[in-house]
């Protein structure tokens, strides 16, 4: 065992990267849930994003186009969920599960020709001399653009929810859809857009795994990150900045256990690999005492006549 091989600066830099897929997916899901929609299909939308982004990036040679394609792919898949829950008024839990099962199958089908290929690399942003500052440089100024995009996205979502009319309407729909409907807001339309936003974010999160984190394509490669993102929204009490905090916490755990595996700690690899899931459960237990922050209409089906 050689713990000194773990460099704390590199660990912090790496945990930001490990946290980004969870962060993107959880931010998208947060918006959907604030609009009152519980979409359990995050895992499915992420894996579809992972393969769409990967395939398009390989075909076009541009990771940026790949990320855009991933967002479109995730949003398209989420439209299926929106159709089921908003138009045909199906149960949201069942529809979300269906989306995940379908997404996992579809991604495996789409990804057949892409196993074992290396995708084009997305270059890190060049901050010039800033990157040479000791400690701060490697941690803050040595990352790819999507990582910064994730942080900006959290800030935008926070600002929109808190300060704009759009955010207020979205929250009204999520808190009490009957009241929002009575005020003349289009509940179904707003929810559909929120679901699509969630899908696009989850898709980009998936593409971050397949294009930057790993970077290659394997079946089922998201391995539960989508579910951790769902847990994270509960953990964050539906507040954007806490999503950022939570994502870094989980990213840190993931990265730390990987580093411990690398350092050859006496704990078997399998038990280290379980740790992010176990810790998610423990955190859920600690935080689930307070349910007051949950949007009032979360998970409830809306039909204008009832």
């Amino acid at each position, binding site marked *: 065992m050689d713990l000194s091989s773990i460099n704390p600066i590199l660990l912090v830099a790496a945990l930001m990267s490990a946290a980004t897929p969870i962060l993107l997916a959880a931010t998208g899901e947060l918006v959907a849930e604030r609009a009152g929609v519980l979409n359990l299909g995050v895992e499915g939308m992420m894996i579809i994003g992972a393969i769409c982004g990967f395939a398009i990036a390989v075909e076009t040679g541009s990771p940026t186009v790949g990320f855009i394609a991933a967002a479109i792919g995730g949003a398209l898949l989420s439209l299926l969920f929106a159709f089921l829950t908003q138009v045909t008024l199906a*149960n949201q839990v069942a529809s979300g599960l269906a989306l995940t099962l379908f997404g996992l199958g579809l991604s495996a089908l789409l990804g057949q020709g892409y196993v074992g290929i290396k995708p084009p690399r997305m270059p890190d942003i060049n901050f010039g001399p800033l990157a040479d500052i000791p400690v701060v440089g490697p941690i803050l100024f040595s990352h790819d653009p999507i990582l910064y995009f994730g942080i900006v996205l959290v800030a935008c979502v926070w600002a929109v929810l808190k300060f704009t009319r759009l955010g207020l309407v979205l929250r009204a729909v999520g808190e009490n859809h009957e009241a929002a409907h009575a005020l003349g807001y289009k509940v179904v339309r707003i929810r559909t857009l929120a679901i699509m936003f969630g899908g696009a974010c989850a898709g980009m999160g998936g593409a971050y795994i397949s294009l930057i984190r790993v970077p290659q394509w394997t079946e089922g490669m998201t391995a539960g990150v989508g579910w951790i993102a769902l847990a994270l929204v509960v953990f964050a009490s539906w507040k954007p900045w806490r999503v950022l905090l939570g994502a870094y916490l989980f990213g840190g755990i993931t990265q730390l256990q990987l580093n411990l595996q690398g350092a050859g700690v006496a704990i078997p690899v399998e038990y280290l690999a379980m740790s992010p899931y176990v810790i998610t459960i423990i955190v859920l237990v600690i935080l689930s005492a307070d349910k007051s922050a949950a949007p009032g209409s979360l998970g409830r089906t809306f039909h204008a006549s009832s």
Partner: protein
Amino acid sequence: MIRFEKRPQPSKAFAYATPLLAVLATFFFGGLLFAALGKDPVQSIVTIFWQPLFGEFAFFYRPQLLIKGAPLVLIAIGLSLGFRAGIWNIGAEGQYIMGALFGAGVGLAFYPAESFLIFPLMVVAGALGGMLWAMIPALLKVKFGTNEILVSLMLVYVAEQFLASMSLGLLKNPEGFGFPGSRNLQQYPSAHNAEIIAGSGMHWGVVAAMIAVIFAYVLFARHKLGFAIRVTGEAPRAARFSGVNPGRLVVFCLGASGMLAGLAGLFEVSGPAGQVTIDFNVGYGFTAIIVAFLGRLNPIGIVLAGLLMALTYIGGDIAQSQLQLPAAAIQVFQGMLLFFLLAFDLFTNYRLRFGRTEVA
């Protein structure tokens, strides 16, 4: 102008017709999918759904229907208990793995002793393993109000890692020349879940599935507990007023479904799979969710749905070898089925109305 109007009572006719409509729609869109993959759609559908039952080699495939169907039905029956009450156990895959590990562990502990008691002991251990694993989300939900969906699902990943650690470590075959995986239980008569009638596919898991179906049927139709489950699902507030203890119901539903999933895992690992390997589980725990919904959470429906899903597995294998249809296509096909089912279910509770909407 088309709009939906809520029916005063859910339509019985559509409740029964929905699964059939969903299957037909899946045939159609699945056919389109196969065509998009460059396969003849009609031939693909025939290969998947006709050949295993009535084709040239049907005598070989028909027993497979029971072998693949039994774990699906067993797990889905358990899931249906919770789903009816709005308790979502979606970690059956993990409970299935833990049941298999507990059961196989007990069996392997006795190796090479021979006794007729070993297999029953394994069955008990398997049931216990699945139940204990499901008790984690159950107790956390009752004690702390933790979301059982997320916890039970997280535990699938934990169970998968545990399985890897067991099949590479404690349960590894000492005479296996270093290959991962346990001793083969098929070669250990006392622990082998052999076919009761040779060549029929009828093993103890099938018997257990039949018993579970009968129990679930009686529970829902005749027992007070079944009534409590149904009321809780349809009107939670009314259930509380009528004296249903929600905590006890959560423990019962998750415990029972975990037990059945654990049993399914044990019967699989001691019979058709034979040994504990890293990937002996093939996702029955997740497919069973589709089975439960397709069977309308009704015991008899689940049997039919389980057989249909088993058919897609068997036919999918045939289509894979004969038509080079990718295995993932079958997975998409199964996912599609659930989609159409959920979508068509609209007509059970709502009716279509044509004409102008008047201003209320």
